[in-house]
Structure formats: structure tokens, C-alpha cells
């Protein structure tokens, strides 16, 4: 399902057009409309609560994009992505709290943006470290090494050592006003929403561009057939590590965003379940960047709806409220089972079919 057909009757005449971002004016219009909705309409019409939900969607999507890059594009199955998100979050927090920033950078409000970038790079390098075994192992064995990343990073290094910095026990909290972008201190959910949507848009652009250039093709080549890739001059180990780097980089961005969303940080925010959750998101979402986005929207919104449904039910069955965490996990498992059986190619495949139906209309053959 790699190709979306042009609308009936449209043809390209130059290679530039065929390789362009937005293939036709209609598509261009649709994308600008979408950007308008997420940047202007949503902030205007959504209330505080749903903006908070949107922020969670964005956070999940940023995490899931990294997982999509590893699993979906390079075939490197990972169950430890939360570790890299955690590394990003901790790097960003420590930089904001402990780094002796020059006065003018603090005044300009550049400390947090710089820390996002540094956090992303550190998380990328950390990810490469745990990607090194991928040079020798594949499949199930690689899953175990990435799980090692999770347990070593979060349960050992972060919990035992990094959290103790400052001597305040387990959690960091960022006082109001420390997270500042330019003149704006991040105080309301709406401001956080704008940070989220900007980071998400930039990440998607970056990733989409990578995937249509040389590096992205090399990743797909390794996923589909590594022996043939090698005979075509692709250095498999180098590109696998590069894939780990970029996935970790995106994870680091997600982590740094989490800091701004939560203003507090604890190793408990990055359990192994989060890694599993992100894999579930892309299983439900399906292939491609849009798969990661659809999956995050679906999972987060479904969970919110479940929560809303459980509140009136709680009047009659109070246990539901107590056990909500378990119900959530159960719903997660159920959703994955249902998708694997009834919609194994995920939501993005359905979306692709719908798009092609309209594009090819009236000659759908």
C-alpha cells in the first residue's frame, strides 16, 4: 500500500511534480485546511479538558513515530522505547534545572528550546548504544536487548542514580516559569498545545522527508531484504544505527515535551508498559506516519471515552472507578486482539482505501 493514486484525470508532466510534497492543488488545499484546523480551530473550540487530551495524543504520537521508524521502517522490533523518551525528559529537566545558563539566554527564553534539541541528541546517542546489538541479532533476540535498554535505563540508572540528584527523593518538579519559550512561560494547557503541535508538525516533516530520500529507502531495503540491500552497497550496520539514532532523537523530543506538559518528572512516568503501549499504538494505527497518528488518536481518545463512561457507571458499580487502571489495560489488550483479527493492516489501510475510492472515482479499476 505504498502508493496513493492521483485523482482521476490528473497527470504529472515533470519529475519534480511527481516527487513533490503535495501532488495536486486539491491535496495542497486539503493539507493547508488540516493545518488550519489543528493550529487555529482546535485551540478556539476545544475546552481545557480536550486540549489536555490533545496534548496526550501529541505525546503518544511523538513516541509512536519513533517506534514506527524502528519497527515499521527498519524492521527492528523494539520494546524499550520508553527508555529513550525518559532519557530525553531527564536530559531536558536536568539542563533546565542545573545547567548554569548565561543570563541573556534565560531572559530570551531559549533555555527550554535548546534543551529540547540537546535532549533529542542525547536520547539518540543513548539509543544507538542499545542499538549496537542489532548488528548481530535480529527478531526476538533484538526485542530482548531493547527490553534491556528499558530496564537498565529507567529501572536502574534513572531510578537509582539520576532521580537522587538534588536530594529530593524520587521526583523532580519544575517550578513555574522555568519552562519558557521566548517570552511565554508554559502555564496553560493551551500554550503546551501549541508547543506540541509545532513539535509534532516539524517531526512529521522531518520524518517524511527522510523516508523519501536515500536514508529512508535504505531503511526500507534493510527491512524487506537485508541480503539484497547489502549487495546494493548499503552498509546495513551503519543504517541500523542511524535508524536507532533518529528514533531515539524523536523519542527525546517526546520526552522533552513531556516535561513541559507535566512540569514534574518521575521514573514512574516511563514504565515498561509505555513501551508496550506505543507498540500497540502502531499495531492499531497501521503502516506509515499516518498510522502512528491515527493509532495515537484512537488509543488516547478511546481511553478518555472509557473513562467518561465509567464515571456514571461508577454510581452503580463503584469497583469500576477503583479498578479503572486494570480496565484500561484490559481494553488495550482487547483492542489489539480485535485489530489483529479484524483489521490486521490497521487504521491507516482503511484510510488509504477511502482516499483511493474518492481519488479513482468514477473509474475505480
Amino acid at each position: 500500500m505504498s502508493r496513493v493514486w492521483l485523482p482521476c484525470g490528473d497527470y504529472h508532466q515533470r519529475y519534480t511534480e511527481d516527487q513533490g510534497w503535495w501532488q495536486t492543488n486539491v491535496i495542497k488545499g486539503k493539507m493547508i485546511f488540516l493545518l488550519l484546523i489543528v493550529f487555529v480551530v482546535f485551540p478556539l473550540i476545544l475546552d481545557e479538558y480536550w486540549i489536555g487530551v490533545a496534548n496526550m495524543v501529541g505525546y503518544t504520537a511523538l513516541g509512536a513515530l519513533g517506534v514506527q521508524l524502528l519497527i515499521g521502517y527498519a524492521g527492528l522490533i523494539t520494546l524499550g522505547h520508553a527508555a529513550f523518551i525518559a532519557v530525553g525528559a531527564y536530559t531536558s529537566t536536568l539542563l533546565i534545572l542545573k545547567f548554569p545558563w548565561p543570563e541573556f539566554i534565560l531572559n530570551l527564553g531559549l533555555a527550554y528550546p535548546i534543551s529540547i534539541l540537546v535532549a533529542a541528541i542525547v536520547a539518540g546517542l543513548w539509543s544507538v548504544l542499545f542499538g549496537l546489538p542489532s548488528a548481530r541479532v535480529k527478531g526476538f533476540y533484538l526485542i530482548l536487548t531493547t527490553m534491556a535498554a528499558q530496564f537498565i535505563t529507567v529501572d536502574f540508572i534513572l531510578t537509582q542514580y539520576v532521580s537522587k540528584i538534588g536530594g529530593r527523593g524520587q521526583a523532580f518538579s519544575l517550578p513555574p516559569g522555568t519552562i519558557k519559550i521566548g517570552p511565554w512561560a508554559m502555564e496553560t494547557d493551551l500554550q503546551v498545545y501549541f508547543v506540541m503541535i509545532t513539535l509534532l508538525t516539524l517531526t512529521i516533516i522531518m520524518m517524511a522527508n527522510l523516508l523519501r530520500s536515500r536514508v529512508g529507502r535504505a531503511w526500507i531495503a534493510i527491512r524487506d531484504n537485508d541480503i539484497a540491500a547489502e549487495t546494493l552497497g548499503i552498509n546495513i550496520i551503519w543504517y541500523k544505527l542511524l535508524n536507532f539514532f533518529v528514533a531515539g532523537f524523536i523519542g527525546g523530543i517526546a520526552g522533552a515535551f513531556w516535561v513541559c506538559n507535566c512540569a514534574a518528572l518521575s521514573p514512574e512516568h516511563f514504565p515498561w508498559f509505555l513501551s508496550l503501549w506505543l507498540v500497540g499504538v502502531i499495531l492499531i494505527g497501521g503502516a506509515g506516519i499516518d498510522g502512528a497518528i491515527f493509532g495515537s488518536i484512537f488509543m488516547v481518545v478511546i481511553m478518555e471515552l472509557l473513562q467518561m463512561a465509567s464515571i456514571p457507571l461508577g454510581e452503580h458499580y463503584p469497583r469500576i472507578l477503583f479498578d479503572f487502571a486494570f480496565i484500561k489495560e484490559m481494553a488495550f489488550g482487547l483492542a489489539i486482539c480485535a485489530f489483529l483479527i479484524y483489521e490486521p493492516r490497521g487504521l491507516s489501510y482503511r484510510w488509504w482505501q477511502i482516499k483511493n475510492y474518492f481519488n479513482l472515482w468514477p473509474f475505480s479499476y
Partner: protein
Amino acid sequence: MGQGGEIKDGDTILKVEDIHMYFGKVAALAGVSLEVKKGEIHSIIGPNGAGKTVMMNCINGLYRPQKGNIYYKGQVINKVSPHKRAELGIGRTFQKLELYGGMTVLDNIRMGSHIHLKSGILSGSIYAGRTKQEEIKERKYIEEDIIDLLEIESIRDQVAHMLPYGLQKRVELGRALALRPEIILLDEPMAGLNLEEVEDMARFILDINEEEQWKTTCVLVEHDMGVVMDISHNILVLNFGNVITDGPPEEVGKNPEVMKAYLGEEDLYISRR
């Protein structure tokens, strides 16, 4: 399909010297030597299990022979990894198709030109300026040279695994060509094709071997004796890891041992003609 043209450049481009390859106690290759001159089509024939594909894999770097040397343009390349050998100019097609099934034909061929592009993660993620230009330039080259040569214009946007077998073989040849190799290892390019497709494929091989633009040396593993006898300049005959003979087709065709080992006792040409 006549005899191939004159050899313009007779220097040795690839030399395999006394290589041994064992899998456990089975000798897949026991002291095989081969010398390929620039500009020729050198075929390797032999019955099933003779070690032809193993030989290709050794030249290509997928297997490391236990003994013996492989020279490419005078350099020993035994320890060079497969992707470096591709950069040196050794292209390869496979007997069992190794296409990227989920990708379009165009993307498959584009994959072949990996080593000729330069963008990295930073320039690739921005995709402007030089990266964009080189992608367009590459696209132009692929469309106007490779796709045009192989006559696969109509299927360039189709997903590779949906195509008929003969076309997939052609796409794989295109992918190997996009590497712009100096020497191309063709592992049974005609296996499983019908007569018309075989003729097409033979013409493509002659084209890439003879045309000024390509001038590619070919090492051909093939079972179709008609084609092999017609288009090769030299033929190496293997049997269970040993060389029976190496020489021009006329000589090989007359060699009694070859006839016994491979060509069968009744008829010289086991061919579809």
C-alpha cells in the same frame, strides 16, 4: 542472437584464484579459478549443485571462501565486505528473486542507485537544495536510461510483488544496473521465463554488454544452453565444485567430458529451441 562483438578491452577485471569453499565437509568449491576479461560475457554452467551460485556469492562477498584469493582490478578483495564491493562496481542479480516486494518498481530501481546519492539524515530530513536536485537527477537517469532500456515504462508505478515473474526478473536487472556496475553477476536471469521473455532478456544482456553507455562485463550463470552458447565469449564448466573446462563456446561444446557431465549423452543442445 549472434556471437558477441569484439572484445575492446582485454584486461582482466576479475580474477578468482583457486578458491575453496566448504560447508561442513561438503566441498562446494574445490580449487576453482576463473579469469574474467573486461567487456566479455563469461558464463558459468554446470549441473545442479555444481557450485555456480556459491561462486557468485564468493565473488559478491556474501560467502567468505576458506582458501584462495579473489582479485578485482588487481586488488585482493577477500576481506572487503559486500557493500564495499558494490561500491567498487560489482552488481548482482539473484536466482530467487530478491526484490523489495512492497515497493514500487521505480523505488526498487532507485534503491540500486543508493551509492550514487549523497544525502544523509540532516540533508535528507530537510529535502531541499542539493538533495532535491540529486533525487530529480537520479529519477531522470532511471526513467530515461534504465526504464527505457528495459521497456518497463508501463509498470513503473506498480508494486513489485504483484508483477508477473518475467517482469520481476527485468526489474531486478534494472536495479542492478542502477548501481552502474562495471561487472554484473547475473544468477540465472532466464530461469522460469517463457521463450519470448528469454529472447528479451538475452537482448538486454547483449545491450548492456555492448552499448557504449553501459559497457558492462557480465558473469552469467544460466541453464539454457542455447542462450549460453550463443551470447557468451567464454564458458566455465563446473561439476561438484571442480572445473571441467574453461574456454570459448565452440571448444566447450565439443569437450566430451562436458557433454557427459552436463549436456547429457543424447543431445548437445538441451534447449527450448
